Each structure stands twice: as structure tokens, then as C-alpha cells.
């Protein structure tokens, strides 16, 4: 099925796909990707982290794996070709120990999981570029909570399918327990936020309360930033605000200090895209996928004209078409098309972070 050759000294590999055999074929493409030794963003304390993998063809996870360094992790990924790859947000005394008691928990980063598939966020059958950009704005708001409210450092990652992971690092947060983490999650979700206390509106004959300013602590500051410099607020705005303010993150993820997070640079089989580090701006495009080249496809379902990975597309049921491999694989993973075959160029993303759209000021 595959004829493989490489060019450019290991930066890319050509794979001829003759007949698509679903997950089995996807696994072959993943294998070629990992063989190129793509860059991964790994924690500095790799030896203290628990790693976990889901193999192709299995519903279960291989957990409690630990590595002494990046090289041994790479060897593992190359030989196993995981469908999904994770490491713990926690650091442990013995990360490979099978139970929490034996692991010896030392602390955990904060993790926020934003899934765009929740009702109300994205309308169409597929997470399109517009939806991703809207989601990214929400992820940035979470990052702001980490930096402004908690005084930590935040990293935003596209998960490679339909959401974002925001990781927060702050010294004081490391040893927070379940309850405290839950409170932080509720804060991000703006749960129980009563804006009438936070932003009093002008009362008749009374004095005008000060408008919120970006320097204000908590939600007042975040609202001021979101609404612009001197927002004039009316009572009915306040009724509508809370729904749009909070970010609908998964409470269970943030409150659990033993959660796993995806390894940036690995692939997510659910969307066939890379777990990608992001900076201050985000324009979805083929850079989210390591796959180039073209694949022949047939539409299984209709799709209204939209933009996916920077590519404008609409589908009519039964339509046969040739698509960029990145788009084809993404739409296949969403169940919208079936694939015939073609030529896929698997690229190693040789950098680690987007050079543009990042504020590199120290």
C-alpha cells in the first residue's frame, strides 16, 4: 500500500497511499511522522512526570510510564506509534508507580480544557476556522486569568482536534488541592458571578459609579479589558453579560491535579492534527497539520461552504474531489468524507513555536 521515500535529509517523507484503510492507514502516516523526529515541547522536569499513551486499536490507555530523558521518550514514541500521547500535569516522586499513594505527589500545574464541541459554541458539523478563532479568544481569556489574577505563566495549545489546553504555572498554584482548583475553574466559568455588585449601574439622581478599568482586580479588570476603556453599562447589558463572559471549561479537568495533558508536537488521532503551541494571534491553516500533498475523496455528507485549515470548501453528498491532504484527513476524521488514495508528504515541523504573533518582550 505504501511506497516510501524521503527527501531533504529527513525533513519530509513521501508516502503513496493506495487505498485507504481507515485507522490502519492513519497509523502508518503517524509512524512516518514520528520517524522524522518532530520537535516536541516537553517539561523541563521530564523525569518527574507520568506519561500515558493510547495505542491504535485499543480503547484503553497505557499509563504510569516514565522516561529518564527526551531521547528515551522519542525511542518509545517511534516504536509504538501512539494514537494519543500525554503527560501528567503533576510531578511525582515516582511517576511510574501504579497508584497515587506510591507515586508521591509533589504538585501540579494548572490545566484548563476548552472543548469547542460543547453546545452553543460552534454550529456546523465540523469545527471550522471561524470557530477555532472564537475558541482561541476564549483560551486567551483563560491565559489572562492565569497571568493577571493568579500571577503565573500561561501556555496555550491547540489540542489537534476541536479545542484548547491552557496550562498555568505559578509557584503558589503547584500544591493547590482539588477544592481550590475547583474554585479557580468556577472563577474562569464566571459561575455565580453577580455583576450588579461588580459593576453598579447609574442610579437615578445618584452619583455615577467609576467604570471598570483594566487595572481592577478580578472580573472587573477582565471585563474592562474585554469591553474597551470606558464602557457605558446599562442594566440590561448586565443581564446578558454573564453568559458571554465565562469560559465553558471542563470543571472535572481543572479540579483534578492528576490529569493528563497532550504533548505539544504529537498528533491527535481524533482530528489528525498536531498539538500546537500558540502565541498571541492564531490563524488556522495547514501549519496545524504535518500532512501535505493531495488525497482523492468522496463526500459522505453535505457541508455548507466554510473554511477549514485556511481552505475554502463545501461538499455535496457523493461528490468526488481531490483535496489537500491536511484538509482531507481532518474532514475524514469528522466523518464527512471517505478517502480513496493519493500522495501524502509528511512534514516534520522543524521549529517549536510560531515566530510571528508572539510577544517576545521579556
Amino acid at each position, binding site marked *: 500500500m505504501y511506497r516510501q521515500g524521503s527527501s531533504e535529509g529527513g*525533513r519530509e517523507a513521501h508516502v503513496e497511499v493506495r487505498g485507504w484503510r481507515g485507522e490502519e492507514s492513519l497509523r502508518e502516516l503517524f509512524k512516518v511522522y514520528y520517524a522524522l*523526529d518532530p*520537535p516536541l*515541547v*516537553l*517539561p*523541563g522536569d521530564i523525569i518527574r512526570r507520568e506519561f500515558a499513551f493510547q495505542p491504535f486499536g485499543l480503547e484503553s490507555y497505557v499509563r504510569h510510564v516514565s522516561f529518564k530523558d527526551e*531521547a528515551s521518550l522519542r525511542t518509545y514514541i517511534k516504536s509504538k506509534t501512539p494514537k494519543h500521547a500525554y503527560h501528567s500535569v503533576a510531578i511525582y516522586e515516582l511517576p511510574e508507580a501504579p497508584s497515587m499513594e506510591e507515586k508521591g505527589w509533589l504538585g501540579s500545574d494548572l490545566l484548563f480544557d476548552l472543548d469547542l464541541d460543547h453546545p452553543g459554541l460552534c454550529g456546523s458539523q465540523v469545527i471550522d476556522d471561524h470557530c477555532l478563532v472564537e475558541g482561541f479568544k476564549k483560551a486567551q481569556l483563560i491565559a489572562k486569568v492565569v497571568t493577571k489574577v493568579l500571577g503565573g505563566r500561561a501556555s496555550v495549545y491547540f489540542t489537534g482536534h476541536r479545542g484548547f489546553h491552557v496550562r498555568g504555572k505559578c509557584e503558589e498554584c503547584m500544591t493547590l488541592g482539588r477544592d481550590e482548583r475547583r474554585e479557580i475553574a468556577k472563577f474562569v466559568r464566571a459561575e455565580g458571578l453577580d455583576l450588579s455588585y461588580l459593576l453598579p449601574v447609574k442610579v437615578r439622581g445618584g452619583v455615577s459609579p467609576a467604570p471598570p478599568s483594566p487595572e481592577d482586580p478580578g472580573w472587573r479588570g477582565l471585563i474592562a479589558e474585554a469591553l474597551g476603556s470606558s464602557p457605558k453599562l446599562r442594566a440590561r447589558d448586565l443581564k446578558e453579560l454573564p453568559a458571554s463572559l465565562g469560559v465553558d471549561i471542563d470543571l472535572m479537568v481543572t479540579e483534578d491535579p492528576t490529569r493528563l495533558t497532550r504533548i505539544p508536537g504529537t498528533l491527535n488521532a481524533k482530528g489528525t492534527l498536531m498539538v500546537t503551541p500558540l502565541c498571541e494571534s492564531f490563524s488556522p*491553516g*495547514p*501549519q496545524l497539520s504535518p500532512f*501535505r500533498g493531495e488525497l482523492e475523496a468522496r463526500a459522505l455528507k453535505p457541508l455548507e461552504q466554510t473554511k477549514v485549515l485556511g481552505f475554502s470548501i463545501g461538499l455535496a453528498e457523493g461528490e468526488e474531489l481531490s483535496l489537500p491532504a491536511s484538509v482531507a484527513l481532518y474532514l475524514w476524521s469528522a466523518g464527512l468524507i471517505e478517502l480513496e488514495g493519493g500522495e501524502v508528504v509528511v*512534514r516534520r*515541523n*522543524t*521549529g*517549536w*513555536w*510560531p*515566530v*510571528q504573533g*508572539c*510577544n*517576545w*518582550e*521579556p
Partner: protein
Amino acid sequence: MKLKFRNAKTWTYIVGSIKEILDEGVFIANDEGLSLRALDTSRVVMVDLFYPREAFDEFTVSGEESFGASFDALGKVLARGLKDEALGIETQGSSLVISFEGHGVRQFKIPQISLTVERLPEPKISFTVFAKLPNAVFIDAVRAVEEVADSITLSAEENKLHFIGPGDVEKVLIELSVEHQNLLDLKVDSPDKATYSVEYFDDMLKAARGADQVTLQYAQDAPARVQFDFEGGGRLTFYVSPRVE
């Protein structure tokens, strides 16, 4: 649009490097000169080329004109250029005519590619380390690192700049300083360190071979800015994003 440049080889070096990073791109010619700014498909390298109009023997442009080209096609043609030949670039309908004059005339016609111009701002970076080095030193250092590692770490002290190849088994450390005359200039605001993929530095070597000198700037875990100066005031700059945890 019609441009003439006295040394075709300069462009062989410039495009030879760019084609390793970009598949295609849009050149813009206006009053100031010829320029191109683009990101590679993974958005980790920005290529920024500027050649002032004064450097050209002929520079005929009406207002602002742009042309898109495949760097593979352009690179193949420009590789035919010789040192004592002049280079001509002319747009003709939907084609690009590249000519070499010196040993008779050779003319190549390649198709223009219609691309939308993405006006990219320069990355916002406060650099803390600034070094100027002869191109031969830069080439040797990158080659040495490449032998043992796939990443390159730049590390600066007050009077020294290090190129480090942190391989799994083998390691290499190259020490450069003004004192030992392998640096032309070094300014270190803070003794910073950053790591990059060595492949992109390798892609730059072709440009380095045709350049007069190399200017290297970076900061702690921030992108590197590598600028090559060419005859007549041309400059080719690469911004390479770092590996950060």
C-alpha cells in the same frame, strides 16, 4: 516591471537559501526597492528580503508592482547564473523572464504564480545579544554543530559567544570572541541562551556564502534574527523561532 542587477551570482545565493524555506512567495517592487516577506508553512521561520533600488542598474517600476514565483522554479533558473553575468528580471504578461547577460544572452521564461500578498509585521522582539561575524566563521560554526546535533544553542557571556551542539552522545562547543578575531563585534546586554533547530541555520548557509557579513541577534528563549548583507546594500534576514519549554 524591468530590473537589472550587475551580479547574477548574488541572487543565486539569495534565492538558493530562500527556496529551502519557502515554496513560493510574492516579491514587491516599489520606489524603495525589491522586497519579500513571508513565513514558511509551519510558521516558525520568517524570511525578510530587501534590496534597495539604488543597487540595481535598471529599476523600472510603475508605482508598486508585485509578482509571485515558485522558489523551486526560480532557484533552478538562477542556479544557471555566473559570477560575471548580469541578471535581468522582467514581467511579461503572466510570465517572468529571467535573463543572463555576459557570455552572450540566455533567457528563461517561468510562470508567475498568483498569490495574495500577506502583509506581515516584523516580529516584536527585544534582543539582548548582538554579534557581527565574518560569513566563513558562521558557516564553519553551523557545519560543526550540524555534525553532532539537530539543535543549536547560542549562549553569550560578556566577551564571548558560544555555538553549542547539544547532541545525545557527542557534543560540540565553539567559542567566538572579538579578541580572537572570529567576531567583528559583540554586545551582550544579558548573558542569554536560546536553542534553535539547526536545520534552518543550515538552510541559511547558501546565503551566507554570498554575503559580506552576518549579523546575529537573539534573546533568552526568543527568536534569533540572522541578517546577511549583500553588495549594494541588500539584506536577507531570517527570524527563527526558538525551542521553549
